[in-house]
């Protein structure tokens, strides 16, 4: 297990240049996430058109894993319906769940992140259990934002 498996170029790139950074005026959904142990912070704004996410804005500070996960997430959910986003959240959480066999969650055991595009780069975090909560922060915040809307 090499450190480069964790710090893939795509992660470093999203960390350096986070996408969809900022805030939205009068967002349709909003949530703030904090990782009290690390101090990673995130706030997420969503704009919806019907059941489709049409704009995402994220502000935050934290480690490269938490910030790149948020940045990649913002790209992945933009333009998707709430159902599609719900599936994406489940697939991401399943990829990060080291307690459960990926096959049981319907994922490829060798490439549990295969369905996730760029986000597959975060698969390496599975081998660094203490960092999984960093990768999950944006997704937990997203789930909270969507729940708060309902």
């Amino acid at each position, binding site marked *: *297990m090499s450190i480069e498996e964790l710090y893939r170029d795509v992660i470093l790139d999203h960390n350096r240049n986070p996408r969809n950074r900022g805030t939205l005026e009068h967002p349709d959904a909003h949530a703030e996430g904090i990782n009290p142990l*690390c101090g990673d912070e995130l706030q997420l704004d969503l704009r919806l058109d019907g059941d489709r996410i049409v704009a995402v804005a994220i502000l935050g500070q*934290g*480690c490269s894993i938490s910030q790149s996960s948020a940045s990649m997430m913002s790209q992945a959910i933009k333009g998707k319906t709430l159902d599609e986003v719900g599936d994406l959240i489940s697939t991401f959480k399943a990829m990060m769940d080291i307690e459960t066999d990926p096959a049981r969650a319907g994922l490829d055991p060798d490439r549990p992140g295969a369905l996730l595009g760029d986000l597959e780069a975060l698969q390496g975090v599975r081998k660094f259990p203490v960092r999984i909560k960093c990768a999950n922060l944006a997704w937990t915040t997203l789930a909270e934002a969507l729940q708060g809307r309902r």
Partner: protein
Amino acid sequence: MIDFSHLKPDFPVLQRRVHGKPLVFLDSAASSQKPAQVLDVMDTVYRTSYANVHRGAYLLSEESTTAYEEARGKVARFVNAGSRSEVVFTRGATTALNTVAFGWGMDHLQAGDRILLTMMEHHANIVPWQLVARRTGAELAYLPMTGDYRLDLDRLPEYLDDRVKIFSFTGMSNVTGTMPPVAELARTARAAGALVVVDAAQLVTHAPVDVQKLEADAIVFSGHKMLGPTGIGALWARPSLLEAMEPFEGGGEMISDVRLDGSTWAPVPHKFEAGTPPIVEAIGLGAAADYLEKTGMEEVRRHGRELTGYALGRLAELPAVRVFGPADLDRRGGVISFTLGNIHAHDVATILDQEGVSVRAGHHCAKPLTRALGVPATVRASFQVYNTEEDVDALLAGLRKVQEVFHVD
């Protein structure tokens, strides 16, 4: 440099490798490793003479009781207490601070009173006072820090007005390594009529602590940061303060008599030790105090001072490193917080770990302080008697590796 290399083999865990590399343990400010001298004593008690203390009229209980009370004597000697009854065993520094905050504060503080703390405190020396302030109506004030990471002594008189009933401050910051002039602060505060409590959790393992010279009313510390086990620590206090304090916890062993309509307390220190205490941990703490005393706390201080100087010099080789702490080695100990360019502390810690180097990353349970430093998190390297210049060299090599992974210099 003072040579402590003969001590390293005393610590069995330091023989191991992590991620294929020799372990370089630089997180002793969070919790230190334990020498065989402590582990063996604890193991022997469990195997040969374990029983509950202050209860049974049989040999094993007598032996346990004697060892437990002897450990109290060792801890008392370690901080030069007037007598062993001035030392209360607690679960750690946190419980000791809560014992004073609640045991003294609930009966002696009221609306309009002030509790003075500083900007450098660990959460353990903030939150108990906040809890007591909320219940009593007392207010909190915080002595500020200077730009060079010292407590602002010039402003102390302004903060020590007659509303201040208690001043509780750290003897050594677990973030910046700052060692305030404890005796000077204590003298000034006591002259102003305040009770003085010193959080010595870091200080006690980095420098000699003599309660006859500190001029404080109480000091607290934990066993696990001073080569002892977890679950045990101590409160030292002047006898008059211990008498004035109510027990923080009630239960067995802390009573003199229990009747249905009320109870009376056992004499100090036992009135503060409700329930079966962590007997073997206390004996382990006694062994840790012996180990440090045998090593010599003056030498421990010299070693820490020299190693800190060496580390600060080597860190200065990397322009991206920013250290948050005093440069003056006389005013600081072996706890160094820093950042490495824009790379987040957790990323630094993960990569260092792959190189075998264990450091802490985060806010170090001192969020008001890290907020004042203006950073979300720092990397912290901290030293113990078993650390060497080679450990610092491994840290530097690791930091270069971090920069390589992040493609920066």
